[in-house]
């Protein structure tokens, strides 16, 4: 007879009856500062579509700005490519998001209110505006119709793009997941830098090297910026930051750094001369950015799974501030670099 064990059961892997009679008894004030090691906050219910969207949304947002910049610089080839890449990413994004919903047929309920206390609500509106504008511009560009409308659409997506590329940092930070909430100062910047890197890298794949100078510069600058910002965030996170070095998040974090650095180096050294190097370099950077989004995503799950991250960061805060938290933003949470 096989008894079905709870997935979180302390007996996982052990048959019932193998614990001693006093299995649950704990010494008061001793090691048990958690409830059977069970999580305090819940892991998100989100699945792979969400980190994939973090990538596509960032790609779309930064590509819109790249497209307009290139157009102003008179680089039509780069401008058009970035426009199409951005529009495609903007088209995929809502599909990913809707597919993640528990009730996909009710996706439009996101748009029945405007609610600034909900980054997901604001993000839905931003994606609607940004995606609508970039796809309108791309279709009109393809058809060669209605130039003034196309210009307007490009203008709108250029302004909405940076918001689309950065709000997802606020989206994850505005939760009770310790490693996300305490990383709130850096996350929108990290996601923005990652978006810039991926937009530059994607354009460098599709545009001949002779026209892709700005794209390569973006890819390299984005990779450098995100590397520094990740370091800054880990410093601030202190003990919480260890999840970026453990388990899946740790592996993804290393993959992100390695892939993005290799890609950026290749673009910097050979991207101008060799088309093949530009394609490979761009692909490596894009892969690195996908890994970065996944690393942040998985780090959140890991920090939710172990109650010590919740308990320790809150206990440290009480100790440091000498008092418990209030709803006034003044008593900032555990963040050593901001400490008094």
């Amino acid at each position, binding site marked *: 007879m096989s008894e*079905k*064990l*709870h997935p979180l*059961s*302390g*007996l996982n892997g052990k048959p019932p009856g193998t614990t001693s009679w006093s*299995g*649950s008894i*704990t*010494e*008061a004030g001793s090691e048990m*500062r958690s*409830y*059977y090691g*069970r999580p*305090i*906050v*819940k892991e*998100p219910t989100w699945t792979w579509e969400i980190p994939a969207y973090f990538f596509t949304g960032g790609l779309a*947002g*930064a590509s819109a*700005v790249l497209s307009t*910049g290139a157009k102003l610089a008179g680089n039509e080839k780069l401008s058009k490519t970035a426009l199409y890449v951005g529009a495609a990413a903007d088209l995929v994004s809502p599909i990913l998001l809707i597919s993640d919903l*528990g*009730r996909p047929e*009710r*996706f439009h*309920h*996101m748009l*029945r209110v405007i609610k*600034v*206390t909900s980054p*997901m*609500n604001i993000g839905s509106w931003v994606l609607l505006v940004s995606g609508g504008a970039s796809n309108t511009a791309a279709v009109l560009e393809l058809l060669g119709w209605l130039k003034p409308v196309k210009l307007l659409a490009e203008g709108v997506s*250029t302004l909405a793009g*940076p918001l689309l590329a*950065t709000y997802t*940092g*606020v989206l994850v930070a*505005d*939760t*009770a997941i310790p490693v996300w*909430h305490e990383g*709130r100062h850096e996350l*929108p*910047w990290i996601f923005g830098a990652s978006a810039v890197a991926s937009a530059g890298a994607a354009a460098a794949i599709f545009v001949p090297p*002779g*026209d892709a*100078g*700005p794209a390569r*510069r973006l890819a390299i600058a984005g990779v450098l910026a995100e590397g520094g910002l990740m370091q800054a965030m880990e410093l601030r996170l202190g003990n919480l930051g260890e999840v970026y070095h453990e388990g899946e998040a740790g592996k993804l974090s290393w993959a992100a750094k390695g892939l993005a650095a290799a890609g950026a180096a290749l673009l910097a050294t050979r991207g*101008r001369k060799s088309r093949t190097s530009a394609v490979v370099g761009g692909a490596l950077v894009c892969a690195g950015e996908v890994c970065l989004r996944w690393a942040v995503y998985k780090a*959140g799950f890991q920090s939710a799974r172990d*109650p010590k991250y*919740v*308990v320790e960061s*809150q206990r440290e805060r*009480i100790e440091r501030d000498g008092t418990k938290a209030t*709803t006034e*933003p003044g008593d900032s949470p555990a963040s050593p670099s901001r400490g008094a």
Partner: protein
Amino acid sequence: MNLLQELLEPTGDPDGWRAYGDDQKERVGFFTDTSVCIGCKACEVACKEWNLIPEDGRVWTGESYDHTSQLGANTWRHVAFVEQRKPLVGDGNGDGGTGLRWLMESDVCKHCTHAACLDVCPTGSLFRTEFGTVVVQQDICNGCGYCVPACPFGVLDKRHIEATTDPPPAFLGRKQDGRVWKCTLCYDRLKGGHEPACAKACPTKSIQFGPLEELRERADARLAKLEADGWNGAQLYGRDPDDGVGGFGAFFLLLDEPEVYGLPPDPVVTTRDLPEMWANMVAAAGTLLVGVAALTLLGRRG
């Protein structure tokens, strides 16, 4: 104007920001006094029965008498069992001499004064009722799951088992309920002038229902009595309106630190820091716009 106000004060005023006018009722809640809980789980059963919560599998955890383990989509009252080698009162002299105590606590949604789940809900499905409680509207929830990691207590969860009511449309080919569920503080019973099912079923008055102000007074008196009698570790949890979530609508008297029961020691509503986060994001977005423009316009084309 309303938006600006919400932006500046994202966690809002639970008494004022939903204008119920004449329909507004006195704020009610629970005081769960764990010092008299006997772990009978009548609250769990009554909750499931009244709210028609489906069975989500039976498991044997080996963790004292606890086989529900945590609050979630299908468990809105959860009785925690903690066995400790520590006497209940003083040094244990004269209480039978086992030196053991068995702590039981019936956990529930805290119905926070500043509720993160309600703040972050993108559809407006989560709302504050005229009783000051926090409820999910099941006909609105689209299962985005944002409230799940937003709750500092891990109360809400998505229901992954088959829907018992209002199933998803057939063309999707899924049977999972897919919506988020949690304690409603028996909104339907409150509307009918009844107390919630768990409080009604509790045989020891460990779960007390009533106007929040009155419950706080009762809790203060109870704590004073336990302290005078020398009970170990007695403390109120969530009673203080000045805490990080503005006080709980459903608060507790515990006999050890909150984390021992699987509760966060110092919860904060995440949206407290949202104005700062939005400002930070706007700065990042602006930098992105200027930075990308500069890198595109300046420097060589190839």
